[in-house]
């Protein structure tokens, strides 16, 4: 973690934090007061005495004081992250060996996880899906179980022509690798694969754009319901579309990775 040490004035306590501005969800009632001075506390440290507070089990959005929306102001998130890192830092001398230091260690690791997850568009989406009860890792298994039960062939989660495409391209990549190993260059094959690379990158971008469209749908659903839970059906509608994009993206991402590796090797 790189902290902007020069700007780090440890005595400063109550400059107006972007966290308090964007905070939308109140903390559970019993965590409202500071353990040390008893005044109202912010989520992670006390606004009046600056002491680190015991971590409250919250989701990553709430940790940053954000609503569970997918369009995130990443620079603002980053700013909050650095500010919090500094304030929660377990190595402050004053905290050494105390219970407060333990809390600040827990808070700091939570902070890192939350930041790493939220700043990344894919991880953020997967995290939201997970909190909506979607088990990305389990979808294949449940579809297989269904196939077993009905005796039907399993419904593939992505379109068959995508699988064909992935398979064919992988065959070509293998050929390219074998050629290279044997010391024979096949410029036309390499050229063809470079062409695929361009197409794949475009596809990858298109998928991200599609995903962002569903982010917008999701965010406006959350806004329309002002904090209270939107109807399950509407949520599931949107999350299903996001799952679909993420699944297709996994294949494209792998191909891109392998294409790059094969071309560079």
């Amino acid at each position, binding site marked *: 973690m790189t902290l902007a040490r020069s700007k780090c004035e440890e005595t400063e306590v109550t400059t107006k934090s972007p966290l308090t501005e964007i905070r939308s969800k109140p903390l559970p009632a019993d965590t409202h007061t500071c353990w040390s001075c008893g005044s109202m506390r912010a989520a992670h440290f006390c606004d009046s005495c600056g002491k680190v507070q015991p971590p409250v089990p919250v989701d990553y959005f709430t940790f940053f004081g954000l609503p569970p929306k997918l369009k995130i102001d990443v620079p603002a998130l980053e700013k909050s992250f650095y500010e919090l890192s500094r304030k929660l830092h377990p190595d402050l001398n004053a905290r050494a060996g105390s219970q407060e230091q333990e809390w600040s260690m827990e808070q700091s690791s939570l902070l890192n996880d939350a930041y790493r997850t939220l700043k990344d568009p894919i991880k953020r989406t997967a995290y939201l899906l997970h909190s909506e009860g979607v088990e*990305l*890792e389990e*979808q*294949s*298994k449940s579809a*297989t179980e269904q*196939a*077993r039960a009905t*005796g*039907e*062939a*399993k419904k*593939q*989660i*992505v379109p*068959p022509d*995508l*699988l*064909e495409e*992935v*398979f064919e391209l*992988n*065959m070509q990549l*293998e050929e390219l690798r074998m050629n290279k190993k044997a010391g024979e260059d096949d410029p036309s094959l390499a050229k063809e694969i470079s062409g695929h690379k361009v197409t794949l990158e475009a596809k990858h971008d298109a998928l991200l754009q599609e995903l962002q469209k569903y982010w917008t749908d999701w965010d406006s659903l959350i806004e329309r319901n002002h904090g209270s839970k939107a109807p399950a059906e509407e949520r599931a509608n949107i999350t299903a579309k996001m799952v679909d994009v993420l*699944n297709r993206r*996994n*294949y*494209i*991402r*792998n*191909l891109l990775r392998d294409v790059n590796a094969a071309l560079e090797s």
Partner: protein
Amino acid sequence: MSYSDKVIDHYNNPRNVGSMDKSSNDVGTGLVGAPECGDVMKLQIKVNRETNVIEDAKFKTFGCGSAIASSSLATEWVKGKTVDEALAIKNMDIVKELSLPPVKIHCSVLAEDAIRAAIGDWKKKQGVHTPVAAEAK
């Protein structure tokens, strides 16, 4: 993560890698993918029309070591079985045989899917209503 000896063995010496004529009437082809990781697997079977016994099986997998081992094992297992017997193979059988850890279960699922898909394709070619069970042994 460390792979079990059996996985490593299948990975280093995969059995039955290759392909068969997709358009042949006796050949069933299953092409499946694991959305969790983006890996793909193709498994083909050649079935004896009289006995419904799977006489040959081939696979090609682009994926992790566990997926390669699972599909290699799957081709070994289906050979000599009737299609109905082959349909009884469950991913957990593969997990047990290869001692796959929980994070690699989806790789074995892929192999079961591939068997199912190949058999499904073959059945389709025989006409959906093939009374498989009524066939004489």
